[in-house]
């Protein structure tokens, strides 16, 4: 693979879709909504702002889970515990964000090229099929990763503003959210992009790719859920085994998407 060439393709793609207001809006607004507005809303709903500890059973359940990962968990009040619990639920929502962003961008990449009839010109270049798929993967990954990072930073700031009066220290980002940001979220993003590229190679329009891509949400949510459960069941298992399994899935999907994307098939679909 010639990295300069595929990087040229990624840069071209990023330049191209950032000229679309619809896509830019999704990349900017989603992290802000999920990172800031969702935690605030959930806090208000759960009654964390002075409504008292009205959810004893969930606190007891989370006691068992979070006492394993948070050292000073026992020192917190029930209100703090309940706020942190909701915070982790929002963190899972943040981890789901790359799926939403990539569903907008990755569908644009291959199906979009086909829809706008630029695919044939792309296929006339010396770029190999593998370089085309990798280039598209990078161009979809970068904005998703940036948006996820912005969302996690925003989330941490908002959560700490809420939590500081309750626990007297900065809580987020903790080990789990850092691992989510730098390990789980990027791999989930790659899997989501690969899945959507795979879908994009099989359909002719962006609309079809986005709609079919929506189905990918289910297995990806299951993966995120399993990763979260693993974290709280055993931190070491969550840090090491979970990401390795996710990486293997990403590698497998990469192999499938590069082997399925063939010039001839892409061209015949243009007819």
């Amino acid at each position: 693979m010639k990295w300069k060439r595929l990087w040229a393709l990624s840069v071209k793609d990023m330049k191209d879709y950032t000229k679309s207001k619809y896509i830019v809006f999704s990349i900017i607004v989603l992290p802000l909504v999920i990172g800031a507005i969702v935690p605030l809303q959930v806090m208000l709903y759960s009654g964390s702002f002075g409504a008292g500890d009205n959810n004893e059973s969930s606190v007891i359940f989370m006691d068992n889970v979070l006492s394993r990962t948070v050292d000073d968990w026992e020192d917190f009040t029930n209100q703090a515990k309940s706020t942190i619990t909701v915070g982790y639920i929002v963190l899972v929502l943040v981890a789901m964000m790359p799926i939403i962003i990539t569903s907008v961008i990755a569908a644009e990449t291959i199906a979009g090229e086909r829809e706008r009839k630029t695919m044939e010109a792309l296929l006339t270049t010396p770029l190999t099929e593998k370089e085309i798929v990798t280039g598209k993967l990078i161009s979809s990954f970068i904005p998703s990763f940036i948006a996820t990072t912005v969302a996690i930073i925003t989330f941490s700031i908002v959560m700490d503003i809420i939590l500081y009066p309750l626990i007297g220290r900065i809580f987020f980002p903790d080990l789990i959210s850092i691992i989510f940001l730098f390990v789980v979220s990027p791999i989930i993003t790659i899997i989501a992009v690969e899945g959507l590229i795979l879908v994009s190679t099989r359909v002719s329009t962006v609309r079809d790719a986005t709609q079919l891509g929506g189905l990918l949400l289910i297995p990806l949510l299951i993966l995120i859920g399993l990763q979260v459960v693993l974290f709280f069941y055993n931190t070491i298992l969550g840090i090491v085994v979970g990401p390795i399994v996710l990486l293997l899935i990403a590698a497998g999907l990469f192999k499938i998407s590069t082997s399925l994307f063939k010039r001839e098939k892409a061209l015949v679909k243009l007819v």
Partner: protein
Amino acid sequence: MSEIVVETQGLTKKYDGFYAVNGLSLKINESEIFGLLGPNGAGKTTTVRLLTGMLEPSSGNASVLGLNSVTQSNKIRERVGILTETSSLYQRLSVRDNLDFFAKVHDIPKEERDLRIKNLVKQFDIADKENEAAGKLSKGMRQKVAIARAIIHSPEMLFLDEPTGSLSPEAAKMVRDLIVNLTKNENRTVFINTHNLSEAEKLCSRVGILEKGILIAIGKPSELRSLLHSDVVTVFRFKKWDKQISDYFSTSSIKIADEDKERLSVTLKLENIEESTPIIIKDLSRLNIDITEVRHNRPDLEQIYLELVNGDNHQDEMEESK
């Protein structure tokens, strides 16, 4: 002797029982402008795609610049320029960004890229549109950008699918001049798919006529004329129509192809043009018939093409009716 740059043997592409290209065998020499003519669906675009390794043949083989079209297709695409049937530009990107991307994937260094883009936009007279989004350009302008994109890496050979189809007469002439310049001064070989027969006649050193995936004729336009049943015809035009004109030609042994009283002309098929023409002029002058024009019409490529393609269709119909 010039080198063979394209060679195909029995090149065939079959889709579900339908032959898009069927047993194509041809050779194209260096610096040649080869035109592939044929009606819609004849297999012209498929031929270009097979030659540039974008499609794999069902059988047969092809080599371009000495490279195998299947096993070395990426190398072929590095060394050739391809203009697709539609301009296929990135509409949201500027003209410059479109050209820059294609230069980058051909590994052209930054300084050289800038220089080439600058020269090309100047050459194609689109320098004032360099920073404009390609989607905002007219159809003709977009075609110019697409051609500039195809030659940005100075390819050794060019494949042009309907290069002047959407251009104004001035822009089309500019493109034709550019194609001639590429072959004459820069030794490039050009393969053109075209519907424009007069363009093919003006540009191409050799043409091939493709019909239902089969190459039914190949050669220089002058060579293809010899394949025709119709040959050179001589047209006489008169100042006014006179009964004597009809009488003279009906009594002589001259073969009349057409008599057009409205246009005051007769079209003749003469056995020996050099000897017969002056005799007819003398005879008609003796009869006091004023001749305003005498010309010999050679069949143009359009006539050759139509006769070959229609003849082939006619033959098919005859076979089907049997």
